[in-house]
């Protein structure tokens, strides 16, 4: 009854107070940890890494953008794409072509690569987003396969003439240029991190505002979204376009990182691996994208350095997917902190009561078993 009898003006006063509460940053600790990690990645990490790891760290930052886009599609809107590898290729090809063919500044080329990819991705998305689940995954997988074939014939630009910019006769292939301020490995790594951070902020801004609400509604219940006046096709296309845009930018960054692009470096399998690591990292959490990129780029690099064949990863990712599907649908990004909290609680209990009774000891042992296996 109270709510009904409340007069409007009174409601607005209370509403104003609650609004002020809402505007306060949600998790200040979370924010400061994020800032600290980004600063560490920018300034703390480079001196600790040799050239080998710096290159893979740059790739990790770049692929974090790709998995962020994929996580957005899968986790926030419920669109399963198995064609993100092809979208990366479109961005990389466009950027390489523009970097060879024009003298435009690097940042402009990257943005253009993103826009071109968004346009092509949007054209593909227009029919594709009318499908859901398995069918969308199949269509996008076929698309990825088709792109691999097209690129195998057209090849990546290597400074030649014509539309494709490819010259098979060339014996001295010039590298794809980098911006002057990020010419060396460390500089380019820092640039990649900065670009990734900007893309994360872009996606975060979307998630916190109207598109984010619309996507959440579409994912859970399209009828509810439609009944609330949300144009579901438009918002799905928006998500698709945004994911294509940031993935295109990642592709553009990849061109500068690799310096020489060959079509055989890009396989259709990449698209499948991308979905696998994105799911393992966690698609409902933006940290999941970073974890996914680490799994996809940094883990093979580490294994290779240790002399372990990274073919093992295919098995590991297979097991990882099983694990995600059976015990941790939200991925490592959500599961890990929860487990750490459990572990912390366990340690706290042990520290607080050093000479715990046998009953307490049993409870702790049970706690550690769950903490250890999950």
């Amino acid at each position, binding site marked *: *009854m*109270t*709510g*009904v009898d*409340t007069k*409007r003006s009174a*409601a*607005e006063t*209370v*509403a*104003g107070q*609650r*609004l002020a*509460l*809402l505007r306060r940053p*949600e998790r200040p600790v979370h924010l400061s940890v994020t800032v600290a990690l980004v600063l560490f990645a920018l300034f703390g990490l480079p001196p600790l890494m040799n050239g080998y790891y710096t290159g893979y760290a740059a790739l990790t930052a770049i692929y974090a953008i790709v998995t962020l886009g994929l996580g957005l599609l899968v986790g926030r809107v419920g669109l399963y794409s198995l064609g993100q590898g092809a979208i990366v290729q479109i961005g990389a090809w466009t950027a390489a072509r523009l970097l060879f063919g024009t003298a435009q500044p690097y940042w402009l080329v990257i943005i253009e690569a993103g826009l071109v990819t968004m346009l092509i991705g949007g054209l593909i998305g227009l029919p594709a987003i009318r499908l859901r689940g398995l069918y969308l995954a199949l269509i996008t997988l076929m698309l990825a396969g088709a792109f691999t074939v097209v690129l195998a014939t057209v090849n990546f630009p290597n400074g030649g003439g014509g539309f494709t910019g490819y010259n098979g006769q060339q014996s001295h292939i010039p590298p794809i240029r980098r911006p002057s301020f990020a010419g060396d490995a460390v500089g380019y790594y820092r640039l990649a991190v900065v670009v990734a951070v900007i893309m994360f902020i872009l996606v975060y801004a979307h998630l916190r505002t*109207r598109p*984010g*609400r*619309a996507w*959440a*509604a579409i994912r*859970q*219940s399209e*009828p*509810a*979204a*439609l*009944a*609330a*006046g*949300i*144009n*579901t096709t438009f918002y799905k296309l928006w998500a698709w376009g945004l994911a294509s845009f940031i993935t295109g930018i990642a592709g553009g960054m990849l061109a500068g990182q690799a310096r020489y692009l060959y079509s055989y470096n890009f396989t259709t399998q990449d698209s499948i691996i991308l979905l696998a690591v994105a799911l393992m990292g966690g698609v*409902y959490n933006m940290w999941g994208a970073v974890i996914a990129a680490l799994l996809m780029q940094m883990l093979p690099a580490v294994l290779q350095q240790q002399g372990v064949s990274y073919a093992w990863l295919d098995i590991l990712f297979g097991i990882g997917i099983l694990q995600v599907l059976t015990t941790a649908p939200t991925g490592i990004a959500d599961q890990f902190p929860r487990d750490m909290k459990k572990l912390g609680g366990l340690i706290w209990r042990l520290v607080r009561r050093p000479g715990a009774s046998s009953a307490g000891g049993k409870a702790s042992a049970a706690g550690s078993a769950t903490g250890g296996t999950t």
Partner: protein
Amino acid sequence: MIEVENLTVRYGGVTSLDGMNLVFEKGTCGLIGPNGAGKTTFFNVLSGFVRPASGTVRAFGTDLLAMTHFRRARWGVRRTFQTEQAIEELSIYDNVAMVTSPLRGSARRADVLAAIEYVGMDVSPGTRVGTLGAGQRRLVEVARAVAGKPRVVLLDEPAAGLPEEETTHLAAVIRGIPDYTGALTILVDHDMSLVSAVCETTAVLDFGKLIATGSTASVLRDEHVMRAYLGTAEVL
């Protein structure tokens, strides 16, 4: 005012609404009938999820059937669903704010918060809906239906599965919707005590046809209505 003329809906061989003629004037109107009478189908026609085979629906002079579903929502049709559709991963505020609104900026935010206030939520608007109980989720859905200046509010069994105490609160909320928003409110429910507590007028559907309409008290005493519900009038 909603005027329905000759509305017919067929699903394959099943005629769900059979030449329905009905006028909802204003205030809170009830729509009752046995299972399969066509109540939810009627809501689906109004909100655009079902295309009728024939007939017209005019709401305040506008031809509703000419618009697609999300445009109807923008025009001012709001509805809740039989199975509650609050979005779990969003906060209460975001659940209500996702609804279309002619308002912008701070006026819009104030409208959203006022709607949450109006339905009598006793938790912070920042609370995630996934953590709420069934009754509060229903209230979130109702808040979404009254935010953003609605013209027609359709409530499909909002009290289904709620305990008596929460139903009483919900009844007060629903009764106040026409005063709060100025919207014509139509309530579908099986709970006759809720319908008689909330609705001034009630229409009764059976097998897709209107069998009675008028003030709620007189409709509930109607012989045809009793027969439709109980199979025979002699029982009473």
